[in-house]
């Protein structure tokens, strides 16, 4: 079925644009960049149609990559129903965002560089999704991390952008460290990294009531997932990642890459379901992240930061779903989130584009008159993320919350509260941007069709995506969870209340928000400054590491010990040489005398040692 074509097409686009893009005309760059992703999407659709109904996994083996002792790792791609969902999301949403980027990046001097990175990202993401063993997945995992770094730091003349890129890369290393340890443990335990063999072996193992090898593996996998998917405690890189161009925020830092952790956890469901401790940890981390990120999102003034914290929060929801055993609900939310969050970011990008780079919500307002399509599509996305009845978010979020209620009611209530806050901050952003009077100084204008087209398509998906019954489609892999209409309507109602409060605060009675913020001044400052987490990390981890490196490792070990040893050897050699060179008198007869003396000594030594035999 030639699955390899799906990732290799964007890779070809990357090579062509990366090598020759500098001298190519923009239409040609567009052709290769967008065309390759379109072909990749088309081929993925073809493959899935031919493989339908895909009851069992379809595997293709290409070649053996590493063969050493009992370690045997092949380059294998596989498609099952979970991969199918991911393939559609990655290539479909990826294609729309590529199209949008044509308009958004039109004026940028690094045009070809942007598209070649974007194509490279698509390649690695598809490898990640298609991989049939942990190591190949890790290749994709690291590759998307690299592309994320390159694209966050895309504006490489801006100090803050390169800093944000470094931060993302370094924080991700911590997660990847855990992930690679997990891979080692898996190999040690199962003797293979192949998904089928590992998971079949794991299914035969008993549930671990207390911590055991599977729990250790799962917790280490979770460390990897918290890095890539921006969960507590490693979420700090994602808000800073907004320094990259907005299509990048939409594609990598909202729709696809950051969901890799959720995908990986769902993929390893056979391991996680045998370790209740790890499952509970996943659920609690997800819930805590969802709640905390939502509270931070309440007070942000940068439109992209609002959506960034919203992404962290929604990823928390997915982890909550996965952690309470509702894997299909988590993947469902992953898909709908890809639709509406990509739309939110692209819409924000259209606003920023229309305002010539202005990102501060306080400098917007009244934009509905100027950019109607953007406003309406963003409204669709906001309704979807708020869980408005019958939009996509309504179905997926409630599937998660219902499953959480079955696990523990208190998780449900915190989740519902978070849903209310989500609705509030998203609509706060919408009201601040599109209603009232314009407060900025630019001349707002609507974006071209190449940008609004993807917006409209994504708006349709955000509204109607909930009717794609992903949990049913994933039924052969993950058991479906029961439904509970009452709980679903309750959380939708809380979402509506959140919207209503946002309306009162920012439309009906503007000024109420400020006085409210003043009345809870300390709390507001705490939230506005993101709980000072960055500052705490800086003081507790970054500074000690930097100081330790500088004082101990650099001055002490490197300059003192290593340089000292090397220089010491040099100085001693010169001292000894200075003495020895006096022998080199230039007088040939003294040399001759030394030769004779030497041979006499050798003969004497041989004689003293007992002769030649």
């Amino acid at each position, binding site marked *: 079925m030639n699955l390899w074509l799906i990732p290799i097409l964007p890779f070809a686009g990357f090579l062509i644009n990366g090598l020759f893009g500098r001298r190519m005309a923009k239409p040609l760059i567009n052709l290769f960049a967008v065309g390759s992703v379109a072909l990749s999407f088309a081929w993925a659709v073809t493959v899935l149609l031919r493989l339908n109904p895909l009851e069992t996994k379809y595997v293709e083996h290409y070649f053996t990559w590493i063969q050493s002792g009992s370690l045997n790792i092949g380059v294998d791609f596989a498609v099952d129903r979970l991969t199918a969902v991911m393939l559609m999301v990655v290539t479909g949403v990826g294609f729309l965002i590529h199209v949008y980027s044509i308009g958004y990046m039109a004026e940028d001097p690094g045009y070809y560089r942007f598209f070649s990175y974007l194509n490279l990202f698509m390649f690695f993401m598809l490898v990640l999704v298609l991989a049939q063993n942990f190591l190949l997945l890790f290749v994709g995992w690291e590759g998307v991390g690299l592309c994320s770094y390159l694209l966050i730091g895309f504006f490489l003349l801006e100090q803050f952008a390169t800093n944000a890129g470094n931060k993302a890369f370094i924080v991700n290393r911590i997660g990847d460290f855990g992930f690679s340890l997990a891979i080692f443990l898996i190999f040690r335990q199962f003797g293979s990294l192949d998904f089928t063999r590992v998971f079949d072996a794991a299914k035969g193992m008993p549930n671990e009531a207390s911590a055991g090898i599977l729990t250790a593996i799962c917790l280490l996998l979770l460390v990897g997932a918290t890095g890539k998917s921006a969960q507590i405690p490693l979420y700090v890189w994602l808000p800073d990642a907004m320094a990259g161009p907005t299509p990048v925020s939409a594609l990598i830092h909202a729709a696809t890459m950051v969901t890799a952790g959720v995908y990986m956890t769902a993929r390893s469901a056979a391991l996680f379901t045998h370790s209740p401790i790890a499952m509970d940890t996943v659920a609690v981390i997800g819930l805590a992240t969802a709640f905390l990120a939502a509270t931070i999102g309440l007070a942000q003034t940068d439109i992209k930061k609002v959506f960034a914290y919203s992404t962290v929060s929604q990823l928390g929801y997915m982890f909550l779903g996965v952690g309470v055993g509702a894997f299909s609900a988590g993947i469902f939310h992953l898909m709908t989130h890809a639709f509406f969050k990509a739309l939110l970011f692209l819409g924000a990008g259209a606003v920023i584009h229309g305002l010539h780079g202005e990102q501060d919500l306080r400098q917007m307002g009244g934009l509905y008159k100027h950019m109607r399509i953007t406003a309406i599509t963003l409204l669709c996305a906001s309704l979807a993320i708020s869980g408005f009845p019958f939009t996509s978010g309504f179905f997926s979020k409630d599937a998660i919350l219902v499953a959480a209620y079955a696990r523990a009611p208190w998780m449900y209530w915190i989740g519902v509260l978070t849903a209310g806050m989500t609705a509030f901050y998203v609509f706060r952003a919408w009201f601040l941007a599109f209603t009232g009077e314009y407060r900025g100084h630019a001349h707002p204008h609507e974006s071209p069709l190449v940008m609004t087209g993807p917006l409209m398509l994504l708006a349709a998906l955000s509204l109607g995506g909930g009717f794609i019954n992903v949990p049913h489609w994933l039924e052969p892999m993950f058991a479906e969870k029961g439904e509970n209409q009452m709980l679903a309507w309750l959380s939708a109602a809380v979402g509506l209340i959140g919207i209503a409060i946002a309306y009162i605060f920012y439309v009906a009675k503007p000024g109420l928000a400020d006085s409210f913020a003043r009345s809870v001044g300390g709390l507001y400052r705490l939230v506005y400054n993101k709980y000072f987490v960055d500052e705490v990390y800086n003081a507790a981890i970054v500074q000690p590491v930097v100081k330790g490196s500088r004082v101990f490792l650099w001055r002490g070990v490197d300059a003192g010990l290593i340089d000292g040893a090397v220089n010491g050897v040099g100085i001693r050699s010169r001292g000894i040489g200075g003495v020895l*060179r006096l022998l*080199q*008198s*230039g*007088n*040939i*007869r003294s040399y001759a*005398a030394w030769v*004779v003396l030497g041979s006499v000594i050798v003969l004497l030594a041989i004689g003293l040692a007992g002769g030649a035999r």
Partner: protein
Amino acid sequence: MQNAVPLSWYLILSAILFGLGVAGFIYRRNIITVFMSIELMLNAVNLSFIAFSYTQRQIDGHIFSFFVMVVAAAEAAVGLAIILTVFKNRDTLMIDEISSMKY
């Protein structure tokens, strides 16, 4: 074999020749003489090789002495060439005056 010259005589002669060579090598100042002393030492060793080879009835000593002769011939060729060049450049064959190759 009874009337043959005993091995020890050859070795004593070889040792005397070698000693003379060493002495000449160290004490003489003319490069040519030093050079001849080296040849003397080589041939003293050759003598003991041949003597051992003859009494032990083994061919190894002969082979060694041929090697030594080849080396000595090559050395004479190269050495004399060097000496000629030195003499052309310095107008001297006094070994103590050729001492610029030092630290």
